[in-house]
C-alpha cells in the first residue's frame, strides 16, 4: 500500500509547483548529476580503467600475487570474525533498548553512535594506548606472550569498533515501531523466551538485520584508518585496503588498481543487495501497517 501512496504523491508533487519553472528544475537536477558524476562515477570508472588498462592478463597476474591472496584471506577472515560478533551485539543491544527500562539507556543509545562520530585513526591510537608495548596493558601482555596491536587481535578490535553501530542502528527504530505485542502473544501461547526470539522476533526483523550485516561487512572490508594504526606494515599481513595503499606508494599502479577493483566490487555488490533489501523491507512494512489499520 505504501508503495502506491508514494507513487501517487511523487506524481503529484511536480504538478503542484509548476510556477517554479523549468530552468530551476533543470539547474538543480543538472547540478546533482554533475556532482555525482564528478565525485562518484568518474573515480569509480577510473579505478576500472587503470586496473584493466593494460589488458586482462596483468590484472589477473596482480590478483594472483601470493601477497594479494594473503591480504584477501585476511580481509575475509576479519569480516568473518567481526560481522557475526557485531550482529549478535546489535540484536542484543536493540532488544535491551527497545524492550527494557534501565538507568543509562539514553547514554547507551548515544554511545552506540560513537564510532560514527570519531575518526578511525583515533580508534587505532586508543588501542595503542591500551594494548601497545608502552600501553596500560602492555607489560601484562608481554609477560603472557600475547600480542594485540600489530597482530590480528588488534585489527579485529579496530574493525569491531568501527562497525558497532550498523546492525543496532537498523534494528532499534524497527523494533520500537513493532512494539511488544507479537512477542507477548508468543509468550501467552507457551513459547519460551528463546522460541519467541527465534520464531517471532528474528523473522520480523530479518531484512533489517541483513541490511545492517551487509553495511557492516562493507565497512569491515574497506576500513583503513583504524586498522592502519594497529597493523604491522608487512605485505601479506595487512588487509586489502592497506595493501592497495602499499602497492600505490610503491608505484605499482596496475596492481594497486586491480586490488582496488576487488574492493569496488564489494561496494557495488553491497549497493545492489542494499537496494533489494530496502524494497523488501518497504513491502513488508506496508503489509504490517495495512494489517494494523484495517
Amino acid at each position, binding site marked *: 500500500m505504501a508503495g502506491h501512496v508514494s507513487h501517487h504523491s511523487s506524481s503529484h508533487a511536480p504538478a503542484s509547483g509548476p510556477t517554479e519553472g523549468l530552468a530551476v528544475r533543470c539547474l538543480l537536477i543538472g547540478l546533482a548529476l554533475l556532482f555525482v558524476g564528478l565525485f562518484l562515477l568518474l573515480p569509480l570508472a577510473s579505478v576500472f580503467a587503470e586496473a584493466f588498462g593494460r589488458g586482462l592478463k596483468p590484472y589477473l597476474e596482480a590478483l594472483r600475487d601470493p601477497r594479494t591472496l594473503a591480504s584477501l584471506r585476511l580481509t575475509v577472515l576479519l569480516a568473518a570474525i567481526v560481522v557475526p560478533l557485531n550482529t549478535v551485539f546489535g540484536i542484543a543491544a536493540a532488544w535491551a533498548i527497545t524492550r527494557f527500562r534501565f538507568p543509562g539507556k539514553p547514554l547507551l543509545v548515544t554511545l552506540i553512535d560513537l564510532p560514527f562520530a570519531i575518526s578511525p585513526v583515533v580508534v587505532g591510537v586508543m588501542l595503542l594506548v591500551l594494548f601497545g608495548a608502552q600501553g596500560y596493558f602492555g607489560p601484562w601482555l608481554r609477560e603472557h606472550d600475547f600480542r594485540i596491536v600489530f597482530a590480528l587481535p588488534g585489527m579485529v578490535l579496530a574493525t569491531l569498533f568501527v562497525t558497532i553501530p550498523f546492525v543496532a542502528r537498523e534494528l532499534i527504530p524497527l523494533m520500537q515501531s513493532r512494539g511488544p505485542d507479537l512477542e507477548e502473544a508468543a509468550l501467552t501461547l507457551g513459547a519460551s523466551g528463546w522460541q519467541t526470539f527465534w520464531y517471532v522476533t528474528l523473522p520480523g526483523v530479518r531484512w533489517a538485520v541483513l541490511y545492517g550485516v551487509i553495511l557492516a561487512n562493507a565497512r569491515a572490508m574497506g576500513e583503513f584508518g583504524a586498522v592502519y594504526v594497529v597493523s604491522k606494515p608487512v605485505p601479506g599481513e595487512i588487509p586489502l585496503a592497506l595493501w592497495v595503499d602499499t602497492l600505490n606508494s610503491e608505484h605499482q599502479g596496475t596492481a594497486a588498481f586491480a586490488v582496488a577493483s576487488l574492493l569496488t566490487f564489494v561496494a557495488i555488490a553491497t549497493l545492489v543487495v542494499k537496494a533489494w533489501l530496502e524494497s523488501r523491507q518497504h513491502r513488508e512494512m506496508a*503489509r504490517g501497517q495495512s494489517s494494523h489499520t484495517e
Partner: protein
Amino acid sequence: MSIELRSVSKRFGDVAAVDQVSFSVADRELVALLGPSGGGKTTVLRMIAGLENPTSGDLLIGGRRVNEVPVQQRNIGFVFQNYALFPTMTVFDNIAFGLKVRSWKSTDAAARVEELLGVFGLEGLARRFPHQLSGGQRQRVAIARALAPRPQLLLLDEPFAAVDAKIRQELREWLVRLHNELHVTTLFVTHDQEEAMEVASRIVIFSRGRLEQIGSPREVYEQPVNEFVARFIGVLNVLEGPVRNGEAQIGGLVFPSHGVPDGGTLRIGFRPYAVQLSRNLGEFRHTATLRHTYFLGILLRVEIELDSGLVIKARITKEDYARLGLADGLRISFQIREYRVLSSQAGPLAPEVSPPVQPDIAEGI
C-alpha cells in the same frame, strides 16, 4: 477455571494503575472488565495472563496462587486488541504456533488446526498470510490461535474495538455462542458499556484503578453502588440545588430535603425511563418544551427543556411517541416517577457517593 484477585495492586512508579482490587470469577463465566480508558482494566487482564506482575496482593487461578507462575505456564489464551497475528506466518502456522512450542506431534497439531479452521469458518484460508485477511477474519484467527492449546482461560483485550460497527454486532453474538459451546472461563476488556451489558453475564466496573462494582448487567444498571457507576452504565440525569426551609428548588422542580440541613446541597439522579411525558398539559404538574428527539431504534431519547432552562433527558418507546403525537418544539407536561439521592454533602461533585439509596417514589414531584 475460577479466578480470584485478593487486594491486587499494580504500581508503575508512583502511579497506581490498579489499586487494591479484589473480585472473583467462577468457572465457565463470561465476564466483562468495563471502565473508561486508564481505568486499570487492561492491566488487570494482563496480570491475570502473567504479562504484568502485581506489585502486591494475591492472584489465584483455579484456587492456586499464580503470582510467580510465568505466563507460559498459566495455560491462558490471550487475544490482543490488534490481534498480534504473526505477519511472517500463514493462518495455519499462526494457529499451530501454540501447539508447536508445546511440542505437540505434528499430526495431532495439524488435526487440531483443521478442527479450529472448521469451527471458525476459516476453511480455505489456511495458506493465507494475515495481511491478506479482512478484519473479522483476523479476529477469528486470533481467537482460534489462542484457543488451539486448549487454555483454561480465554482473555480478550478490547476484542471488538478494531472492527467496524456493522460486524461488531455479529461478533458479539458470535462470542456469546462460542462461549456457550466451549465452556471456557472468558474475560474481556471493554470501554463500551453497551457491549459489556449485551455480552457478559457479569460486569466488573473499574475507574481510576479501583473496582467500583461487580454484578450482573441488570444489577449494575438498576442498583449502581455510586454515582460513577450510575453515570457510566446508561444515562443518568443529575440535578443539584441548595436546600432552604426543608426543601430544594432545582430549576423549577421542588424536592424534599431528604435529611440535608438548610444551607446544604441536595443532589439527585434519575434514569431517562423514569421521566413520564404527556401531551395533556394538565396531566402532570410540570411543563416543558420538547427540544430534540434522538431516534436510536425501538427506543427514542428526547430532551425536554423546562422554562428555567434546565434540560432533562427522557426515554420513550417509538409506539408511545407516536401514540402521544409528540414532536420537537411541542409543549408537554411531565413527572419524574422515581429518583435517588446521590450525595448530600455540600460542595462540588463527590466521586465516591453516599451509600446507595433505595429508589424513592416521589409523588407530586
